[in-house]
């Protein structure tokens, strides 16, 4: 373990820990835009600068490992002034359209501008203009809002192992794009969307569907494969308008295209809304009482005529444990047969 002090507070962390991680471990805030705990340190946004005693310039805390006896200062008038200037530079060519931006209220850049009180930008300068070129139905790219933090590039390469995008060109012309600036053609996992700190990458499906304040967030489990990913349903007016996942989950916040974007079946108009009974060859709407009485009557008659083992039940790998338990209990105790199975083999 390495002992150091941060803002005069003694902190002890394992060797190899960065100053940023040590500070966060001690619950001392340092602003960042390009840092993600699951990705390699990048040192791109420079907002995480701190003073270290004995070094006569600020250092980026996300890329500097701690050393024994290090004395770190995370905030001072000079550092905050530098941070504010960095933010002003980032915002100098940023479209100030927070009013209609999908990310408003959930945007790291907006939040930092708020805390640093940047109302007017003294560094207002040339703007970048991009032609939109995305036919894919999942990911909306507003590249003029990109701050080149590179999180999307790193996540695509380091976590997803796809490498669909990278930073092309240099200086003011630098941009994140697929090879040869083609249309995005990837696995559409949306991991990039989940880590983007601004409104540069958002989900098309939840565009203009509701702001944070009207949305209820409910933690549940993804209904698709057996990985058991934790998902957060964003619900507005009895409708799921977005799915996300928190970082402190089994799946570390990562999802696949089905988990992240495949939720609109929930509120699909074709959902069954009423029981049906077949009459003269056609399925006709019925009440619950009619349907349940009819089933109870028919199953009772089949059982009386042919025995309980002439009735079988298929339960569901899509339903909950409780429902599956009740289903087999119903088949075994109420109907009287062990003819109960589900699609484990299919």
């Amino acid at each position, binding site marked *: 373990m390495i002992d150091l002090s941060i803002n005069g507070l003694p902190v002890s962390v394992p060797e190899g820990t960065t100053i940023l991680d040590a500070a966060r471990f001690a619950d001392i805030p340092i602003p960042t835009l390009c840092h993600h705990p699951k990705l390699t340190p990048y040192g791109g946004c420079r907002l995480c600068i701190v003073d270290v005693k004995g070094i006569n310039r600020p250092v980026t805390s996300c890329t500097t490992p701690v050393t024994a006896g290090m004395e770190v200062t995370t905030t001072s008038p000079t550092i905050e002034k530098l941070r504010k200037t960095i933010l002003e530079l980032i915002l100098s060519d940023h479209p100030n359209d927070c009013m209609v931006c999908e990310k408003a209220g959930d945007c790291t850049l907006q939040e930092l501008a708020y805390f640093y009180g940047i109302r007017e930008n003294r560094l207002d300068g040339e703007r970048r203009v991009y032609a939109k070129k995305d036919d894919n139905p999942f990911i909306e790219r507003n590249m003029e809002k990109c701050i080149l933090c590179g999180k999307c590039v790193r996540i695509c390469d380091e976590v997803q192992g796809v490498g669909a995008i990278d930073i092309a060109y240099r200086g003011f012309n630098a941009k994140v794009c697929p090879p040869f600036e083609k249309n995005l053609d990837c*696995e559409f996992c949306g991991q990039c969307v989940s880590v983007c700190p601004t409104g540069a990458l958002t989900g098309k499906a939840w565009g203009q569907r509701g702001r944070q304040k009207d949305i209820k967030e409910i933690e549940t489990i993804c209904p698709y*494969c*057996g990985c058991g990913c934790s998902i957060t349903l964003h619900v507005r007016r009895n409708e*799921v308008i977005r799915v996300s996942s928190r970082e402190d989950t089994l799946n570390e916040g990562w999802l696949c295209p089905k*988990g992240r974007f495949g939720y609109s079946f929930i509120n699909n108009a074709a959902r069954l809304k009423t*029981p049906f009974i077949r009459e003269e060859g056609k399925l006709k709407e019925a009440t619950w009482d009619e349907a349940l009485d009819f089933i109870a009557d028919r199953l009772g008659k089949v059982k009386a005529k042919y025995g309980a083992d002439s009735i079988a039940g298929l339960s569901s790998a899509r339903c909950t444990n409780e429902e599956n338990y*009740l*289903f087999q209990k119903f088949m075994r105790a109420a109907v009287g047969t062990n003819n109960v199975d589900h699609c484990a083999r299919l």
Partner: protein
Amino acid sequence: MTNSIPEIENNDVLFVIGSNTTETHPIIGLRMKKAVRKGAKIIVADPRKINLVRFSTVWMQHRPGTDVALLNGMMHVLLQEQMVDKGFVTEWTEGFDTFRKSLADYSPEKVEKITGVPKKDIVRAALLYGEAKRPAIYYTMGITQHAHGTQNVFAIANLALMTGNLGRESTGVNPLRGQNNVQGATDMGCIPNQYPGYQRVDLPSIRAKFETAWDAKLSDKPGLTATEMMNAAMEDKVKALYIMGENPVMSDPDTHHTVKALKNLEFLVVQDIFMTETAQLADVVLPSACFAEKDGTFTNTERRVQRVKKALNPPGKAREDSAIILELSRRMGYDMKYNLIEEVLREIGGLWPAVAGITYGRIEKWGLQWPCPTLDHPGTPYLFKGGFPRGKASFTPVRYEPSKELPDKEYPFILTTGRQLFQYHTGSMTRKVKELNIVAPEAYVEINPADAERLKIADGDTVRVTSRRGSIDLRALVSERPYEGLVFIPFHYREAAANILTNPQLDPVCKIPELKVCAVKIETGHGGQ
């Protein structure tokens, strides 16, 4: 899984056989990629060049259905190289001698002829796995959906046992379950021979326990499996079928047979969230709530019981499945009373100690992995630490048997089926999601460029694929993924349902159908749909 998902990244060797993990279990696939970044090596055994091959050290492209030969070949090498964990074999297993002799026939040279995998790759894979300190095996339906699926699984168990690679952290045997709660449905006793918690229905003492708990007389006769139910319906032995949230018309082999069987029933009830292909055949259709509209638990592939929470109300008059079952049961004269859905979990815990320590409160944030017998038990991340529940684990000698339907002159191709990334199972959910259907709009048959050229098929052409059971028309996807002579069709699409073609032959032990191998022919010039 004997291990848990977070343990994957600490494997030093991953042997992935019959699992297209990055598409069927994408988030587990991410953990595998993470393991590779941390220095692990992946051995892939798959007839197709799946995405994971890109991350692998060895890829064995074996013919579908030759897994037993391949695995026996690897074990033959381990035996020759004396890479057997003798201590583990003596202390924890039985039947090693008979098993050892059974491998004599499986020299890598002979196995190369059966599987098509070069001898050097078999040797390399065997040594990689044999030398590893924390290796784990991962498999999915590529191993199980065969008429000899049980044999395949025995072969995998033998490999792990002879090398002592079980019962340690990041070391074990890991079948990846394909549906959100297929583990739970099995745990809960929705299987014809076992009550909840894998307790056999034909053992009188166990039956007595459940009769007391449920206050009912119970049958001592093991029931029928899903695939057997269809045959029994055909033979007039099953007269009524109640289906909750399943779509056998799409998921079962030989669709024509399934539809005939369902139509032959006197009474069919289907309870689902959509008017599925199966629901359209029903006498009564009941609308149910989907996962986002109810409270309860799912159990994922690593035995983790996780909390499912109600986020919205079901549409129209749709009701939660639990409410429907309870009401129907009451009307049939068997009243099950619960004030809260959590009381059901408590009742399960009383009958199956492995989940007795799990409460909704404890799994509010993180799930718990069974066995978790007491309220202060932390759950069990990996199984078989310090031994097996039955005492010693048995080796089961396994002989390679060819699949039931192999290519011949008339049907020269092997067809294998499976899932793809953007669709899910029978498609009743994902086919309703507009975005997913923009990128994955239609069925296709993957065919090797050499075969395509010989049959004069261009990428995107409509072709007719025919087996002994039926034919479907779909688009050709010319791809290097399958080898010459193999074609692949995803089974999500009702317009060209792959299961019209598949072979309903069953494994004699577990009754799983042979969905991964059948013989087909491919023709052009039918004009398409």
